[in-house]
């Protein structure tokens, strides 16, 4: 029962209290229409012309209220042509409602937006009215597109990493027995995983060299600062340098534990690095002392390949290996531009 049904039979006018109730109802529902943060259009189903539009519609399209009223949907860029408009009204007549999940919208000001349209037909005191709700989903669409790009990029990186694992398996399988091949492969995959964690934790915005050294030496953490010594101010390495230097450190650490300064009870490894701003040169050195007597290896194994050729290629640098009686040493020098994270590289390189 609406208040209108109980109007006075003699005057057909609402009583004072009913008038007040109507006034409050009018304010409430008009505010709803005016304050909505979605566009709302009322349309005459017979003429297909807009009869009313809320203020948000103007914000969405750039047309004033007066410009909107009397127009058809295709005239305000909401539907692409008159035929689409006829189809839409046919569907509305048949089903009483319709929903367009994403509709490109060309606004009066020339902007491009993505909108979602929900329309339904209802009865307004004997007349059919179409209500059209239009929601701007541009931001949501952009987020969806970005997510798609990220997933594609993650897949690319995952596949590259698998290809690196495949390459490690292939190259390290030469000249070793099966047991040491498997043990070595497992350790190397562990080393790659540790570097990967650091890269992901920093969203590929580079890795702290100190964190990288510590993570590749984590196996010896109880010797940190006593027998495994770090010297250097922290700098950030780019993703490719982090992977290459990380793998080299892993091989150096494994070797020191098996044959070098970390294989006895009082040897020491000093890992130091400097970033020389004047000459734009990054250097890192690995120095073993007080270990067992040093014997140069008889053949070039996978570890040697990694600490020389591989790391050199990954940072465009040069390495020097020393088998001094006092201990094994390894030096790396590379152009800072190849090693350090710079602002130009400091974001996920996703093409838009």
């Amino acid at each position, binding site marked *: 029962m609406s208040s209108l049904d109980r109007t006075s039979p003699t005057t057909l006018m609402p009583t004072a209290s009913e008038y007040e109730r109507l006034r409050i109802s009018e304010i409430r529902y008009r505010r709803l229409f005016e304050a909505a943060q979605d566009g709302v259009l009322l349309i005459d189903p017979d003429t297909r012309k807009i009869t009313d539009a809320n203020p948000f519609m103007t914000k969405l399209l750039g047309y004033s209220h007066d410009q909107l009223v009397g127009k058809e949907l295709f005239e305000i860029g909401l539907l692409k042509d008159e035929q689409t408009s006829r189809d839409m009204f046919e569907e509305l007549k048949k089903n009483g409602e319709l929903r367009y999940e994403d509709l490109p919208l060309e606004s009066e000001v020339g902007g491009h937006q993505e909108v979602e349209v929900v329309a339904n037909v209802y009865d307004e005191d004997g007349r059919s009215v179409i209500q059209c709700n239009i929601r701007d989903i541009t931001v949501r669409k952009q987020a969806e597109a970005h997510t798609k790009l990220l997933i594609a990029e993650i897949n690319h990186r995952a*596949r590259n990493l*698998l290809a*690196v694992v495949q390459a490690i398996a*292939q190259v390290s399988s030469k000249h070793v027995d099966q047991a040491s091949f498997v043990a070595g492969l497992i350790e190397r995959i562990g080393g790659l995983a540790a570097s990967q964690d650091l890269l992901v934790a920093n969203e590929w915005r580079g890795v702290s060299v100190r964190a990288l050294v510590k993570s590749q030496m984590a196996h010896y953490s109880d010797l940190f600062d006593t027998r495994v010594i770090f010297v250097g101010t922290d700098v950030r390495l780019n993703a490719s340098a982090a992977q290459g230097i990380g793998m080299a450190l892993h091989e150096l650490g494994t070797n020191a534990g098996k044959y070098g300064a970390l294989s006895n009870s009082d040897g020491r490894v000093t890992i130091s690095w400097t970033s020389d701003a004047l000459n734009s040169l990054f250097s890192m050195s690995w120095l073993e002392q007080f270990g067992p007597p040093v014997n140069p290896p008889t053949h070039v194994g996978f570890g040697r390949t990694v600490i020389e050729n591989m790391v050199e*290629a990954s940072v465009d640098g040069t390495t020097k290996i020393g088998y001094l009686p006092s201990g094994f040493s390894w030096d790396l020098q590379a152009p800072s531009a190849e090693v350090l994270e710079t602002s130009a590289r400091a974001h996920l390189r996703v093409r838009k």
Partner: protein
Amino acid sequence: MTDRPLARVLIIDDEPLIALSLKDTLVEAGFQIVGVAGKLVKALALIDLAVFDVAIVDANLFGESSRPVGLALAARQIPYLVLSGYSEQQQGANFPTAARYFQKPCDPKRLVEALSVILVNRLHR
């Protein structure tokens, strides 16, 4: 067999270990590696200077598209195959002149077969 000249291959990949494993695979299969480039500038320089029959090209080198590499190879009429972590759908359009497209990781045997087919086709062209 022994006096047959070896087919010469140029490897372009920014991942040194992958380049190394490719080199191993191809040398074992009887190819000669004329050079390895990880950076775009070096790749283009090698394409200019080196003499080779076929190239393996990574689609992206240290964040740069290697599309110019495909163009340079096509200009010299040297066949190449693309080997990338990206799918052909993602990157294929940048390499319209590629003889084949492989996504990493890829079985080395398939690469060797594809290279042989490319070279045979070239001989009979």
